[in-house]
Every structure is written in structure tokens, then in C-alpha cells.
């Protein structure tokens, strides 16, 4: 049952030297470490003469890591806290507790320790990413930020609302370079923009046009070009392909994979569609009401899931396979309100296998197989393995 990570690469892989050693294989170089991350949002309830503050735990004690050049998929139903995890890693939201450690080649950065001026700078430069631009260093004030050169970026779900209609495509893609002050020379900026645009398979003739002239798929390519123009180490793709039609979705998934090969960027790929995540990711994490329930290499997660929730999610995907009978496990009820998250294992209210222990004690986050983490009291009793369809390949 040991996960065969070398299998994760595609057969027709053209190894790119810069990526070869760091392609998300087991024991690859660490990029981001998330330790006991917790995000709480205060919710104020006003009463006649007083107000009460309740806390919504959007993310509760989540730990995982992301390696250089790998894609980590994050799935879960709406309201499970996927987006909050992504934002907290970028520090667009302040975590309440826990650490996010960003390993650069020279230093380790504790994002939680950035404060005041440093944090403001970091936030200002969030949408961008640096390479070895000489100007970039000059604009930074502290040593920490200086070391924190290669950065992170974000691709959103809706390619319509995330592009400024009054800017040309060229200006949109160039904005992270300009905003960060990383490049000031117009010709150099143009050169970089054209380079990234052609990598993203945009027609260079179209750079002078405005976004309204483009279809959804092309807009998403513009968004990707903008996120990658500064050559980041890490990009969060938040439901980046969910709003697209299947054939365009396939195109964007292929594009993201190609760009990862070429540039060695790591992705946190947030989506609710499990089949897309399966295609994209080296490892996949499943979230349920603010907690990780399972984190494993893609193969293990999809063929030998260990958590009942993962199993139920997988069974609910409608496939067009004629041999597969569609018999989703019927989860009773709805996703609990995170304001009143269930005690113990948060899934116990809908879990068909729940016992008394599940309602009272929080299950431990344990490694049941190499790299395969699960939080479930009864994990030893379950075997949800599925028959492999592509065993011959």
C-alpha cells in the first residue's frame, strides 16, 4: 500500500533540470510548513443592552507542508475553511494561532512574526513575486523581507471580476512587477510580460486589448500570467477552474501543469471538484468544518481512502463510467454550522460509523501509512480501497 510517488509524474514528462530534483517527490525540499494553524473570526451578537462575542473557528489546528514544485490539492464542501487556509498562508488573513513557515533557499521565515512595517510591506507585495530584480531589494526595509524574496501569489475563481476592465491586458499582467517596484525599465517589463504571456499561450497581438474582449478561458489565462509574472515559488489557486466549461477547464489544468514543469512553482489548488483535484495534485488534503480529516498522496487518497468522509465524498462524484454503479453514500443532514461545531470528531453527526467515543474525544492526527495522515478513531477498522482501473498503465 506504500504510495508510489514516482508514478505521479506523467509518462511523457520532459524533465526540466530546475525542477527535476524538486518535483514534489517524497522527501523533496520543503517550501511551506503550516503548524497548528488556527483562524477565528469574532462574530458579535447584539442584544438589547449588551453584546456577546462568539468565535467562528474557520480553521482549527491544521498542520501540513508543501514542497517545492508540488501541487497540494485542498478539497472540502463549502464552508469547510479551504479558502481561509489559503488566505492565512499568504497572510492576507491573520492567523489566531499557529505558524506558517516559509522556507526560502537562505532563511526560514516565520510569517507570524512579521509585524508592523514589515507586515505592511509583505502585504503590499503579496500579489507579486520576485526573481533577482535589483530594484526589488532596494524597496525593502528589513533583513527579513530581503531574504523573503521569492514569493507567493493568488489566482481567483472568477476571471470576470478579478480583471480591471479599464486596464489593458499588458498593464494587468505587468502590474505586480510595477507595484512591487521590482522592475522599472519599461522595456524590461515588456519583455517579461511577453515572455509570460506566450508561456500562458496568450496571443501577443492581444496584449493591447481590454479584458472584455476575451472569453472566460482566455481571461483565466491572463489571471495566471499575472500571478506568475514575477516567477513566484508558491501560488494559491482558489477554485481557479471551477467556473469554466469542461474543455476549457482541461486546457487550464494542462497549462498549470506545464507551467509548473517549466517554472518549478508550487500550487495550493483549492477546489470542490474532486476529479479536477485528482488530475492536478501530487498530494490532496480533505477538510471538514475547519479541520483536516485526511492528507495523503493523490494515489493513496483516491484508491485507499481511510476516512469515512473522504469515502463518502468519493462515492458522490457522478462518473460516466458504465461499469461503475452510482451509489453515493447518503450522508444524513447538512454540514454543521461552524459556529456550533460538533464536539469530538466533527464528522460524527453525519458519520455512519460514529460511536460514543467519536462524540466525546477529538481524534488524533496520525500517520497510518507513509505520508498518509488521517484523523479518525476507528481508522484501523476501515478498508475503503477501490479497484484500480488504470492498473495496467
Amino acid at each position, binding site marked *: 500500500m506504500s504510495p508510489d510517488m514516482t508514478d505521479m509524474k506523467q509518462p*511523457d514528462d520532459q524533465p526540466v533540470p530546475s525542477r527535476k530534483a524538486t518535483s514534489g517527490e517524497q522527501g523533496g525540499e520543503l517550501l511551506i510548513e503550516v503548524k497548528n494553524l488556527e483562524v477565528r473570526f469574532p462574530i458579535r451578537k447584539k442584544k438589547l443592552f449588551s453584546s456577546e462575542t462568539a468565535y467562528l473557528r474557520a480553521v482549527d489546528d491544521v498542520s501540513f507542508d508543501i514542497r517545492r514544485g508540488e501541487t497540494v490539492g485542498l478539497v472540502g464542501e463549502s464552508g469547510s475553511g479551504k479558502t481561509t487556509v489559503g488566505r492565512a498562508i499568504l497572510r492576507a488573513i491573520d492567523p489566531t494561532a499557529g505558524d506558517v513557515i516559509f522556507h526560502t533557499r537562505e532563511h526560514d521565515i516565520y510569517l507570524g512574526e512579521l509585524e508592523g512595517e514589515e507586515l505592511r510591506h509583505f502585504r503590499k507585495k503579496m500579489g507579486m513575486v520576485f526573481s533577482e530584480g535589483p530594484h526589488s531589494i532596494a524597496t525593502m526595509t528589513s533583513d527579513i523581507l530581503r531574504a523573503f524574496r521569492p514569493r507567493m501569489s493568488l489566482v481567483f475563481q472568477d476571471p470576470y471580476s478579478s480583471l480591471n476592465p479599464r486596464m489593458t491586458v499588458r498593464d494587468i499582467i505587468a502590474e505586480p512587477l510595477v507595484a512591487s517596484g521590482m522592475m522599472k525599465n519599461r522595456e524590461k517589463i515588456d519583455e517579461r510580460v511577453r515572455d509570460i504571456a506566450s508561456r500562458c499561450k496568450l496571443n501577443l497581438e492581444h496584449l493591447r486589448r481590454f479584458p472584455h474582449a476575451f472569453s472566460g478561458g482566455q481571461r483565466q489565462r491572463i489571471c495566471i500570467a499575472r500571478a506568475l509574472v514575477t516567477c513566484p515559488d508558491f501560488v494559491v489557486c482558489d477554485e481557479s477552474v471551477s467556473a469554466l466549461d469542461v*474543455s476549457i477547464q*482541461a486546457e487550464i489544468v494542462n497549462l498549470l501543469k506545464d507551467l509548473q514543469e517549466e517554472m518549478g512553482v508550487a500550487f495550493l489548488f483549492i477546489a470542490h471538484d474532486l476529479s479536477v483535484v485528482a488530475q492536478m495534485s501530487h498530494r490532496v488534503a480533505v477538510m471538514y468544518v475547519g479541520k483536516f480529516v485526511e492528507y495523503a498522496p493523490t494515489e493513496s487518497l483516491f484508491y485507499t481512502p481511510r476516512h469515512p468522509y473522504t469515502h463518502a465524498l468519493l462515492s*458522490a462524484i457522478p*462518473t*460516466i463510467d458504465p461499469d461503475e454503479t452510482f451509489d453515493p453514500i447518503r450522508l444524513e443532514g*447538512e454540514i454543521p454550522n461552524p459556529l456550533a461545531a460538533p464536539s469530538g470528531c466533527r464528522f460524527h453527526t453525519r458519520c455512519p460509523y460514529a460511536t460514543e467515543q467519536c462524540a466525546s474525544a477529538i481524534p488524533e492526527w496520525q500517520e497510518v501509512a507513509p505520508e498518509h495522515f488521517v484523523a479518525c478513531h476507528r481508522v484501523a477498522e476501515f478498508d475503503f480501497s477501490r479497484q484500480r482501473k488504470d492498473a495496467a498503465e
Partner: protein
Amino acid sequence: MLKVENLSISFRTDEGLITPVEDISFEVRPGHTLGIVGESGSGKSISTKAVMQLLPGNGIISKEAKILYTDKSGKVMDINKLGKKGRAIRAIRGGEIGMIFQEPMASFSPVYTIGNQMVETIRLHRNVGRKDARRIAIGMLDKVGISNPEARIDQYPHEMSGGMRQRAMIALALSAGPALLIADEPTTALDVTIQAQVLDLMRNLQRDLSMGMIFITHDLGVISHIADDVAVMYLGTIVERGPTDKVIHEPAHPYTQGLIKALPSVDRLHDRLTPIPGDIPSPNERPTGCPFHTRCSKTIVGLCDRHQPQILQVGEDHTVRCFLHEKQGRATA
């Protein structure tokens, strides 16, 4: 029960007349589900809106189009001749043909309770008093699996979760007792586990009420589990139509084949996805000849780009619009 023939829809716009739907025909049998699949902009939603005369003011349904609907009493009428206003079409909307939309929040009024809106619908289409209407509404909510319907009925739409709202929406559409239900992407905004619940529910309700259904979606996986027949739309034409099994497992049109190949699957982790090359052209620059020839890998130069292919029969109830089947199939015309 519903037979649409030669339906074309045009819109008057500033840039001239645009025809997003051209010459489509389909039919729905009682107790059966017709699935309509297609990418965004293929015209699947507006074709069904035309069936209910719900097109916006600048929309025109072609004169030669026939929308024949057999109502509950067995009377056949041509909806195209009814016009957009008047008693006859209002009786059909809701009462004969119900509709469910993708975003349930947009279909409910936020300022009235769920029950209020259901009672209004029921009383409009059925000759019952307020108390009876409320009883019917509670029964309907119970039927769609909403727990504690007596209390839920007095809640406002925002007090419900997404899945529950979609179920309430289904209950609302069904409360007037329609014979045909048009569901426009009813599960697209839902999570997979909730989607499975809603699909289940719709299948059971259809069986219990022996209702006809048109199910619009872009998800072939969903279609294959709910529809008896499928129509695949591309740029306003139906390129392939037939029993679901046949269309999905022996697709005849290159576009259908492309759609199926582009689907990601949890069973093919290593395969690279194969997208259909190119983008869907906008309806005001529809290619000449076969609309798909600009993206098709099997284009026959000189034929596909000049002539519109005929509808060919390739199997029992299975038709396709493609020159590749010219020899095997025979023109139905």
C-alpha cells in the same frame, strides 16, 4: 408531451440580429427525462426559456417554429402561438410546466417566508383555500426531505442552507403540480454530497409523480445518472441526440467525443486531459457550414466549412448532425 420543432431564436441587438439558437427539435415523453448538455453560450437555457415564453423583450421566436404541448387534460396547443401575455400562457407557466433555476436565492423573494410564496403559487394554480394550500405546502416540504416542515415553512430563504434552499425551490416548483419540470443547472452550485441528495430526490419525485423533465447541465457525469435521453448542443444547434447510454458510451459526433475526453476522472490520474482545441465562437460570428468545423479534428475541407450537415440516423432514436456519418446513416429527411 412536449414536442419542439424547428425552433430558432433571435435577438435584436445594437450589432444587428443575433441568432443564438438555430433550428432545433426535441421532444419530452411523460415520465422521462431529457438532458440537455452543452458549454456556456450553446443556447441550452434560452431554448427552454422559449418553451415557456420567457425570453426577454428583444427575443424573437421564429414563425415556423412549433412548440406543441399536450396539457394534463390531453389538449394539444402550440405555445408559440399563445404569445407572451394572457391567461393561457400564465396557466402553463408554473401550473403545467414548472421551472427550477441554478441559484435558488435568486428565485425566492427574500422578504416573504418560504410558506408565503408556496401558498401563493398553490392558490394561483389550484382551486384551494389558504389552509389547504398551507397543508399541501407542508406536505411538499416533507416530501423533498426537509425535516420539521411545520416550522421550516415560516422561515425566510436566508435562514436556510444552500442545499435546503434548493430543495425548497424544488418543492415550490412542484407545489403547483406541474406535468413537466424544467431544471436549469439545479445542482451546479451545490457540493457533491448535497448534489447526490438532490439528484436522488428528483429521480424519486419524478417516479412518484410520473412527471416529464428537462434537465439542463454542463456536467456529463450528472446527465448520465438522471437522463433517459440526451441532446448535445453546440452553438445553438443540437449536434447529437439519443438515448443517454448510446450518446455517452458510443458518441457519434466529434464534439460529443471531445467533451467526454475532456472530462477529468478520478480513475485516470496519470492521463493528460485532452481539451477541445480553440474557443467556442461567439454567436454573432457563427462559422459557415457545420458550426463545429473550426475546432473539429476531422474536418473535411470543402465540405464541413461550406455546407450544413443534415440530421442523420445512426441508431435507434439516435441522430447526429455530421458528414462523417453520411455513408453509414441515412438522411431522416
